[in-house]
């Protein structure tokens, strides 16, 4: 593979615009800033995992890396793996609507997500997002309403899945000269919407308000683009990593699509375009690109295990393991990318908390206790890593224990996934007391 970075001039030519060089000198990246920003990334890989393998058997620092986690061996000191965290309601295949919202009353729809409550990424973005071009980056492999992000009103935030368009917006240079005009267009249509509003009935007004809010949001983005001087530094771009034409519906393209999306997330963080990212890698159940993974339909295989003991479903569990490792390999690549980029006195991972996991544990019975979750990076946010932490007395599932499918009885002392979400938010500097089902912060992961 040719990893030759793109030269600055080529990059500019690529942008299709001839800027004079003096202007370029103002380009800088977040890396140059004295105190790098804090960031949070949420990556959801739905449909559960091979639960016989995922969680380590012992807790503490000396736990043995399980097969799917071996891909992360090099990063062992940089992440914490959790056992025993849960949502009260998993939502089954509505897991995307619950994962970051912890909405116990969520009703799953058919395929796309339905209304939920605000998700933690948007909660963080409401405060942190003001400082960047994009308040948050919401992306997904299937896109649209296959999202894990929900706004304050509980409306799903559509996930973007158009690689080329995301890249174009990220680079932003191509249309730099027309930004001021864009701003005046948006300002103009906002005024038009306002005068139209008086003519409409109540229901229509609400709809028009959506339009109005959207115009304002895009306007903000344009203003941020205008003010944004730190365009992507040329050596940030790595051509070989960007397969912008990859089509997730083509099995052969699937890995390239996911890797490119991770790379775009990296670039967005690297250029400080945003500090909050949510990535719904694929859909839960569904008929989308999910089945294009190398081994066929992951969802069906998950069901096929019947959550039975491992020796009963050897073939099925082997396939699940393959999936789990396929995804952790992608995660490892992403984390490594962050780790090998310097900023301030540290690497980027130091200031980036990455929550990775599924909204489901046992794939056949769709359990939502003992969720497979790991938190990587963010030591600069006071997270302390290199351990396996188990909560609520959770033990690793063993076939001899008959009741491995049963979640613990939840008492007032129970620790929830909400507590972890809240902790991430608060370490980002955004108060999240009582978020979802949270009752306390997860101090265990900070000491």
């Amino acid at each position, binding site marked *: 593979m040719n990893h030759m970075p793109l030269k600055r001039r*080529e990059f500019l*030519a*690529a*942008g*299709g615009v001839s800027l004079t060089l003096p202007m370029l000198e103002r380009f800088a990246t977040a890396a140059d800033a004295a105190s790098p920003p804090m960031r949070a990334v949420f990556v959801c890989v739905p449909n559960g995992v091979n639960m016989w393998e995922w969680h380590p058997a012992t807790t503490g620092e000396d736990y043995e890396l399980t097969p799917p986690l071996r891909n992360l061996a090099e990063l062992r000191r940089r992440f914490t793996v959790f056992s025993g965290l849960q949502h009260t309601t998993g*939502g*089954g*295949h509505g897991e995307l609507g619950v994962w970051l919202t912890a909405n116990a009353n969520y009703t*799953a729809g*058919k*395929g796309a997500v339905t209304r939920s409550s605000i998700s933690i990424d948007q909660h963080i973005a409401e405060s942190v997002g003001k400082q960047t071009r994009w308040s948050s980056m919401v992306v997904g492999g299937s*896109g*649209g*309403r296959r999202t894990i992000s929900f706004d304050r009103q509980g409306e799903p935030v*559509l996930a*973007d899945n*158009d690689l*080329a*368009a995301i*890249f*174009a917006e990220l680079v932003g240079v191509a*249309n730099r000269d*027309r930004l001021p*005009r*864009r701003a*005046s*267009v948006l300002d*103009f*249509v906002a005024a*038009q*919407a306002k*005068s*139209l509003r008086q*003519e*409409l009935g109540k*229901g*229509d007004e*609400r*709809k*028009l308000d959506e*339009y109005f*809010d*959207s*115009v304002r*949001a*895009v306007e903000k*983005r344009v203003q941020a683009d205008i003010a944004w001087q730190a365009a992507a530094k040329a050596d940030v771009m790595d*051509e070989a990593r960007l397969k*912008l*034409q990859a089509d997730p*519906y083509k099995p052969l393209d699937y890995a390239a699509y996911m890797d490119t999306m991770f790379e775009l997330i990296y670039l967005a963080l690297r250029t400080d375009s945003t500090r909050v990212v949510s990535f719904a890698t694929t859909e839960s159940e569904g*008929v989308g*690109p999910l*089945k294009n993974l190398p081994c*066929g339909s992951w969802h*069906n295989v998950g*069901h*096929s295990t*019947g959550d039975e003991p491992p020796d009963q479903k050897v073939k099925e569990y082997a396939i699940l393991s393959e999936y789990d490792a396929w995804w952790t390999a992608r995660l490892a690549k992403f984390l490594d990318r962050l780790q090998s980029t310097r900023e301030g006195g540290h690497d980027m991972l130091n200031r980036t908390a990455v929550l990775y996991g599924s909204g489901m544990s046992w794939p*056949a019975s769709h359990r939502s206790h003992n969720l497979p979750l790991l938190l990587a990076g963010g030591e600069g946010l006071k997270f302390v890593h290199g351990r396996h932490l188990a909560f609520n007395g959770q033990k690793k599932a063993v076939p001899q224990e008959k009741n491995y499918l049963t979640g613990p009885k939840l008492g007032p002392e129970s620790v929830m996934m909400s507590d972890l979400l809240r902790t991430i938010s608060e370490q980002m500097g955004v108060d999240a007391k009582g978020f979802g089902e949270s009752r306390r912060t997860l101090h265990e992961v900070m000491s």
Partner: protein
Amino acid sequence: MARRHTLGFLCVALLAVDPASAQQQHESAYADTVVPFLKRHCVACHGPDKQESDVRFDGPMPDLVDRDQAERWLTAKQLIAQGQMPPEGRPRPTADELTNVLAWIDDAAGRAATVTRGGIGRRALRRLTPREYVNAALDTLGMSFPHFAVDLSSRLAQDTGADGFSNDSNLQTTQPLLLRRSLDLAEQLVDVALPDAEDSAPVSYKIDLREYAAAFQGKLTNPNPALKLDIPGARDGEKATLKLTGRWIAPGKGRGRLAAARLDSERGVVLQPNPRLIDLPAECLILEMPRVADRGVLRIRATAGGNVPAGEASPVLRVSITREKVAVPVAEMVVTASADEPVEHVLEVPLALVSADWKGIRRDGHLSVQIDNAAALSYPTPRENGDHRKEHELPLPPRNELILTSLAVEVVGSPSRSPDLLASATAGQTDRDRARESLEVMLARAFRRPVRDSEMAAYLGLYDAERARGGPFLAAYKLAVVAALISPPMFYLVEPKDVQQRPLTAWEIASRLSFLAWGTCPDEELRAHAADGSLLREDELRRQLNRLLDDPRSYEFCRDFVRQWLRLDTVIHLQPRTFTRPTIDDKEDLSFYETAIRRDLADEPPRFFQEMLRRNGPIEAFVDADFVVVNDRLARFYGMEGVSGHHFRTVPAPAERRGGLLTQAGCIAAASHGRERAEILRGVYLVERILGIDIPTPPGNVQPLDVQLNNDKKLRQLTPRMHVEAHSSVNTCAVCHQRIDPLGFVWDQYDMFGQMRRGKDGTLIAAATKGSLPDKTPFADMDEFRRLLIEPTATMPRFTDAFQRRLYAYVLGRSLDHGDEKHLRSMALATGRTAVGLRDLLAAMVLSEPFRNK
């Protein structure tokens, strides 16, 4: 049946009565009939002393606009109607009592529905769907690119779930992502329509391919020949390079098929189908051009004809933009001209709208255009039994040939169908007057109505501001056009409110009609009828509807409605092969065929719908038709002979394909989700899509049927029927599944792609098609099932009723509610109970009150 309500005597025409007195009547009816009923039958348990289930019926008159109230009262209505309330042991209400109370609840619910949605017509401001938006924007700008292979609407975020129609204003939202992408698209479109003064000399290359052929004839046998020819530019002299590439590896050395392209100095370059777009295509022409800007229009003029052996598909001329490992197909056109009489084919591609890899055409300005023959097989050739030769050793049957005689490739400033978007400059006219004149035409088209003075002033103000900032005329005008394209009157179907509900204006009706029938804004004739108000007359509205439906553009409506209704888009991405036997070219030809047949499968039901519209076929024919609408590939798929050519046409149906939609492979495939064992999924599909019954989402942890089968050895020993029956009886989901599961058997004779299930020897496998409808009416097979769907019932045949609801929701652009019941009924009456023609039904819907009123 869940949705069929007995309406009693609700046919009180709400509009005919003065609203105030209607309200009075409604109130007195409550006091006179409902209150006594409640006192006698309900309040004992649901009143001041006891509140069973937390429900009370002793309050003041309820307002069903309140959601909770509505739910309580409609639940009560259902329980009373079913005789579950009052509970056993309590005195039964008399028939008179019942009728009056139920009718009152219906009336209240209907009124509430009208109030909630702010009028009898539409509930909320309806946004254009992504497809409509692209169509309308292109029309407003006066552009069309009929052979452009890029679906621009896919760049706009889709915000609806899998279940509703994308035009359902209740489900639509508008989000920043959508607006952002719409703005991007609007800017790009305007750049294409109104190019800045030519920034570089136009590029133009003309190649006589007969000369090319003469120059290289006889050199194709070499391995990797360098068939490169420099082509001088017609205008600026810069050279481009034309090369014919292909796999001419010595036989036996390579794997897979070899190139069969020929050079013919009499006729030109002869290309056989190329199943592989990138990574060693079998054969194609590549023109490498120097330094082309990434804007303007790429125009290909190719003189081409085809040789088509019997049973083969027509050649397809495909143009792609390529670079290294990326190739983006940008235009496609079927070539039907014969080799002896080649004709000129013109394909236009707006370069700015090609989402080619950013580094592809942009990095160094070079542009490579690949031209090949993209015809897929019309039917794969199976491998002989016992033939174990390697794939490349198998002789391939003769394929069609695309013969290219000459080729002209140009990059020009603006599209050939030049838009009248800019008034031509006249002497003595100021720039501002020219902008005003142009804006008047453009804004009226974008807004689908005359422009108001205040709007005109605002847009001119936008223009002025840009000029004041020093912007040139064109830039300032383009700014106003972009603003118009994303402004609310373009983005939405705006229908301002009035104090009272009101009839729509002629302009508003024109928009509704045009977006319904063509998925785009009104054309000139429709605008004329809106302008003189004649569209408000029933006869003119009917005439215009018919005119629009007669136009081929109405296929947009057929496609959009049918593909969503029957979820046909899922068929495109189904994984398993349709052709299960080994073929002589599994590696390339077959996978190319599989892509093509999926597209055809998804196209058949809309084409069938189009034919039904054309002939005003009775609704019943959707499940009972003696014809099919197929093309060559589908005909072969169905085992029919004698259909050649890529276009869809009507032919008599073979015996196993007389069920209309029910025997169309696309529907069966969409219902089967690519699973061999799909009885339950098929049942759900039939219940929801064909019988129109909403069923709740199943709990999250239910195992798919084929998975259950895999898991449980005992289950595997059962027949499919026994297994499904076990499922619907033991499972806790029996309540729903007893209604769903027995339906799926009706397709037992058809496999997951809708082909007949056959044994190895080709005979039909005995199917067990016995099942029952959700209301337990049994059927023996497909024929009986179809008869049950269309036999007369007390109200309407089952299918007709369901179909009418689906279509009406689409026509109105919102989900139906209680207030629509009477219109559905009156439509049924207006069109007559039996043998309603599709076109008549559509006309009745368009003429109905909700369509013509706010």
